[in-house]
C-alpha cells in the first residue's frame, strides 16, 4: 500500500525531474555535438533566473506591470513576459561565447578537457557577474502565497508545480518536433552521432554548433527560471549545484541522446525525492551523484545508449 506521502514525493520528483530534463536535454546535445562537458550549463540557468528577476523588477515594474498571483500561481504574468527575453539573451550570450572562446579553441584542435576547462572559467565568470550585479543573498521573484492543489488520492501539490510541468512538457515536445521534423534538428542529431561523418557528408557543423548553443542555452534559461519558481528563491550558486543532477541525467541517458536525458532526468528527480523517505533530505545531491556513479560503473554508455 503506497502512502500519500510517497505519492507526493513521486509527484514532486517528477516536477523536479522536468526541470532537470530541460537542462539535461540541452546539455546532452552540447556534449554530443561539441564533445565536451559544458560546465557553465548550470550558471547559464542561474544567470537566466536572475535576468528574469531583473526584467520583472526594473523595466516591467517601471511601466507599471507589477501583477503577482496569476490565477492559481504565485507569480504574475510579468514573469511570462520576461521569460522569452531571458531565453533570447542566454542564447545570444552562448553564441557570442562560442564565437569568442570555444570556436577559437576548436580551430586550434584543443582536446575535450581543455574545452571543458574553458567552460569552467566561463562558469566562474558568470557567477561572478551574478554576484556583482545582484549580490550573494537569497532573492525571490515577486510572489504571493497560494493554496496547494488537491490531486486525486489526496496528493497535495503547489500549483506552480503544475505550471512547471506544463511548460516543461510544451518545451520538450517542441524540442522533439525540432529534432525530428526540421533539417537543422536532424543535422544536430546526426552531428551528435558522429561529427566526422557529419562533416564529410557536407553538413555545416559550425552552423549546427551555433544552433546547438541557441537551443542548449535557451533550454537552460527556461530550466533556471522554473527552478527559481519551484524553490521560491534565487541564489548565485543554484545553477552550479544543479550540475550534478544534470550530468547524472545526461550520462544516464547516454551522451548526445536528448530522449535518454529526458528519462534520465525523471529517474534522477524521482529517486532523489523518494530517497528522502529514508535519507536526510539535504543529501539529495549526493543521491543524484550515487546514481551517476552506479550508472558509470555498470553502463558507461548510459541506459538508453545507442549501439554504434
Amino acid at each position, binding site marked *: 500500500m503506497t502512502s500519500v506521502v510517497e505519492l507526493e514525493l513521486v509527484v514532486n520528483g517528477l516536477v523536479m525531474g522536468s526541470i532537470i530534463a530541460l537542462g539535461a536535454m540541452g546539455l546532452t546535445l552540447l556534449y554530443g555535438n561539441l564533445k565536451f562537458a559544458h560546465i557553465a550549463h548550470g550558471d547559464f540557468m542561474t544567470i537566466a533566473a536572475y535576468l528574469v528577476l531583473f526584467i520583472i523588477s526594473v523595466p516591467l515594474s517601471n511601466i507599471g506591470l507589477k501583477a503577482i498571483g496569476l490565477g492559481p500561481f504565485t507569480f504574475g504574468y510579468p514573469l511570462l513576459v520576461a521569460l522569452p527575453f531571458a531565453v533570447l539573451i542566454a542564447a545570444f550570450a552562448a553564441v557570442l561565447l562560442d564565437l569568442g572562446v570555444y570556436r577559437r579553441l576548436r580551430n586550434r584542435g584543443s582536446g575535450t578537457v581543455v574545452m571543458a576547462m574553458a567552460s569552467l572559467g566561463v562558469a566562474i565568470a558568470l557567477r561572478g557577474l551574478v554576484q556583482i550585479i545582484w549580490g550573494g543573498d537569497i532573492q525571490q521573484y515577486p510572489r504571493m502565497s497560494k493554496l496547494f492543489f488537491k490531486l486525486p488520492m489526496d496528493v497535495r501539490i503547489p500549483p506552480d508545480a503544475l505550471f512547471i510541468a506544463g511548460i516543461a512538457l510544451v518545451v520538450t515536445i517542441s524540442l522533439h518536433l525540432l529534432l525530428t521534423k526540421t533539417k537543422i534538428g536532424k543535422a544536430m542529431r546526426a552531428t551528435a552521432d558522429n561529427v566526422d561523418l557529419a562533416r564529410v557528408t557536407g553538413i555545416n557543423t559550425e552552423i549546427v554548433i551555433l544552433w546547438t548553443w541557441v537551443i542548449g542555452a535557451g533550454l537552460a534559461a527556461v530550466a533556471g527560471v522554473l527552478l527559481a519558481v519551484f524553490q521560491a528563491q534565487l541564489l548565485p550558486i543554484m545553477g552550479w549545484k544543479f550540475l*550534478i543532477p544534470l550530468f547524472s541525467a545526461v550520462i544516464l541517458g547516454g551522451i548526445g541522446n536528448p530522449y535518454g536525458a529526458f528519462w534520465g532526468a525523471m529517474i534522477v528527480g524521482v529517486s532523489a525525492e523518494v530517497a528522502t523517505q529514508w535519507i536526510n533530505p539535504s543529501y539529495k545531491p549526493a543521491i543524484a551523484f550515487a546514481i551517476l556513479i552506479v550508472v558509470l*560503473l555498470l553502463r558507461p554508455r548510459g541506459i538508453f545508449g545507442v549501439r554504434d
Partner: protein
Amino acid sequence: MIDLLGIVDYGVGWAVVAGIYAVFTLGLNVHWGFTGLFNIGIAGFFAIGAYTSALLTTPSPDTALFEDFVFGGDLPSRLGVLNLGIDLWFVIALLAAATACGIIAFAIGFLTIRLKEDYLAITTLGIAETIRLVFLNEGWLANGSRGLYNIPKYLGGLVHPEHYNYLYLIVVLLVLGFLYIAVSRAINSPWGRVLKAIREDEMTAQASGKNVALFKLQAFVVGACIMGVGGALYAHNIRFVSPITFDPLMATFVIWAMLMVGGSGNNKGAILGSFIVWGIWAGTQFLPGFLSDPNIRLLMIGVLIVGVMLFKPGGILGEERRFSNRVT
C-alpha cells in the same frame, strides 16, 4: 617604523596563505599538468585534509554545548606526545591528512579512472559536494555547520603569538620545498615520463604496453595526498574549519587559476602562479570603489582562466619542454 612592521607582518601572513595554496597547486599539477586528470573537486580533498588534521589534534568542544559531537580526536593528549619537545603530533596529523586523501582518491579512482576523461571532472565535482554534505550533516563527526575551532598551532609554545606567522611561514616553506623537490624528482623519473606520455597520447601509451589506468590511479592518489597536506596546513593556519570553508571558489577555482596562470606542467610555474594570483587576490582589496568588491575577484578568476587558455595556453612559464605542448 610601526607601519613598516605592520606591512611586513601582513606580508608574512599573506605569504603563509600563498605558500599553502602553492602546495595545492603542486598537487593539481600532478593531476592535470602531468597526467591530464581533470579534477574540479579539489575542495573535497582540501576538506578531508583539513578535517583529518583538525580532528586528530583539536580538543573536543564542550560536550554540554555540542552534545551531538562525539568523535572528538585530540590525538596529542591521548598519545601523551605533547611534551615530546618537538610537536610530533603535527607531523603525524599531516601524514594522516595525506593518507586520508589518498584512501578517498584511491576509492574514487579505482571506480572511475578507466572512464572517459571528462567523466572524472563530474565525479570529482560530485565527491566534493558529497564530502561537504557529510561534514555539514553529520554533527557527531565534525560538529556539523558549527565546525571545529581552536585548532592548535604547530610549535605554538615556541614564540610569542604576535610573531607566530614568521615561524609558520618557515614551516610552510619547508613543507612546500620538500614537496617541490619530491614532485620534481618523481616527474623526471621514468614513472613521471610515463605519466606525460599518457597525457600526450593515451592510445600510444596503452599500445606500448603501459598499464595506463594504474599509472593514472597512482598519479590521482599522489596528487590527492599533496592536497591533503595543503588542507592540513590550511587548518592549522586559520585554526577554524567548517563546511563553508570549502566553497568551490576558494577551495577549487582559485587553485585552478593559479596553475593556469603559472603554467601547468611546470612545478616552478605552479608555485609562481600561486603567489601571483594570491597577490592579485589580496591586492584587489586595496582597490578603490566597487573594484574592491570581493565578487569582482570571482569574475576575474573566471576571465583569467579563459584568457590564459586563449592567449597563453602555457601560462607564464609554460611547460618545461621535453614533450610537445599540451594545449595546441
